[in-house]
């Protein structure tokens, strides 16, 4: 049996009186795109933040390659987290920095890259993502779609092994949404990273996902392939896909 790359085992998380995650079990496999769907406010972003270490479970375990995170040494956790990248729902670009500086930041601050190597890598991303000519602009001077691309460039510039996308297409028109989906798919194919996407773009997002999980009422109600979702007999899953209340 293949050991999942990242695994949630009975993870619970509470904010004051509200229990957001009530015992989540979820497996994420290496090199796949896993999409988490579910109603707004069900804790999908909270789930992502547990993977990157911005939040920690109240109870339950997160396993990396089968090893519980809480049993890993600090160095091992750091090494794992260095392989992760996170693309925020609202991009979280630094508004007082240019697009070039935003994309270069993770390299300039963390790695021992010489300046010319940083420039080369950043310009590669800028070219790949169609941001040429915008490198000296500030995020506020760009359209929503370009800001998304800049955020994606910043997430990919460190050559991550895992990229977490928190609603990467929020606020975009259907054409730009499709572009972002295509970009994610192409980059995932090219660089073979593991992707976890939180998305509401149903059914479009199914076309780029290998696995789909649905979070509802603090629990994973369904986990499987695109076909399995579409063939599912679960009333919650079917109602959500049709955009109806269960």
């Amino acid at each position, binding site marked *: 049996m293949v050991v999942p790359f990242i695994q949630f085992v009975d993870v619970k998380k509470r904010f004051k009186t509200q229990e957001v995650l009530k015992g989540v079990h979820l497996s994420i496999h290496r090199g796949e795109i896993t999409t988490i769907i579910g109603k707004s406010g069900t804790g999908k972003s909270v789930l992502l933040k547990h993977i*990157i*270490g*911005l939040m920690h479970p109240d109870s339950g375990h997160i396993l990396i390659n089968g090893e519980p995170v809480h049993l890993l040494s600090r160095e091992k956790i*750091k090494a794992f*987290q*260095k392989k*992760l*990248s*996170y693309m*925020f729902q*609202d991009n*979280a*670009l*630094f*508004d*007082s920095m240019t697009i070039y500086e935003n994309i270069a*930041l*993770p390299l300039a*601050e*963390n790695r021992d890259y010489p300046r010319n190597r940083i420039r080369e890598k950043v310009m590669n991303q800028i070219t790949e993502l169609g941001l040429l000519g915008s490198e000296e602009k500030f995020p506020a001077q760009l359209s929503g779609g370009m800001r998304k691309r800049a955020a994606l460039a910043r997430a990919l510039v*460190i050559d991550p092994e895992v990229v977490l996308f928190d609603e990467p297409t929020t606020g975009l028109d259907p054409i730009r949404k499709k572009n972002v989906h295509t970009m994610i798919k192409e980059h995932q194919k090219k660089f073979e990273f593991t992707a976890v996407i939180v998305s509401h773009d149903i059914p479009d997002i199914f076309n780029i996902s290998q696995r789909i999980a649905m979070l509802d009422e603090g629990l994973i109600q369904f986990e499987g392939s695109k076909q399995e979702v579409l063939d599912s007999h679960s009333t919650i899953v079917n109602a959500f896909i049709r955009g109806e209340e269960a």
Partner: protein
Amino acid sequence: MFIKSVEKTGETTIRLLESCGRLLIFFATGGINVFILPVQFSKIIDHTWFIGVKSFFVIVLTGIFTGMVLGLQGYYSLVKFGSEAGLGAAVALTLVRELGPVLTAIMVTARAGSAMAAEIGVMRISEQIDALKTMHINPIRFLFTPRLIASVISFPLLTSLFNVIGILGGYLSGSILIGINQYDYMDTVIKNVDMADINGGFLKSLVFSLIVTTLCCYRGYYTHLFSGFGARSVSLSTTNAVVQSCIFILISDYIITYFLV
């Protein structure tokens, strides 16, 4: 009723202790990072420019009018005792020991401290601080440490500027406008201001720089914990940062003065 009030007092005490602990850890983390390589030269220069150089005109304006008012008030008080010749000393000692460091710190708090709290607060609510963490960049080192160093450099220099301009302001109103002997004014300044007075003033400005930067950055950094969410939380954090900085400047001024005199 009694139990409820005890519970409330307990809750408030715990929250206050938590807040103090968080503030201390924040300051210690920022302070330790001053000594961790690599030195963040470009950020330190940027912040020194913003905190120090851009405060130049505010300090000059405040300094000259403070000195002029001191010259005017000092003259009319001293003339009653026939000691108007000591005006220079009175103006200079008041400025060097007290008003220079305190007013400089308050002006810089209003100009740069509020900006620090607001900028970091906006970064917090727009997830930019979380973004730093996901990039494995220590946000306290990235945001607070360079500002701390820049303040430690800028505050004493701005205080010196304030003192010099203030003494010139006193000279302007006391000697040029009222007509006190120019030589007497400068002579009493030179004879009565000791190195100990100047060092005391610098010590105060150093302490104030630590207080202002720590409180303003801390308030911005933990905006989400104190004042709810959104733009309103940033405005509340900024207001609180400025008010608390001013209060702590005055409290610490008293404490330092108590030990210096």
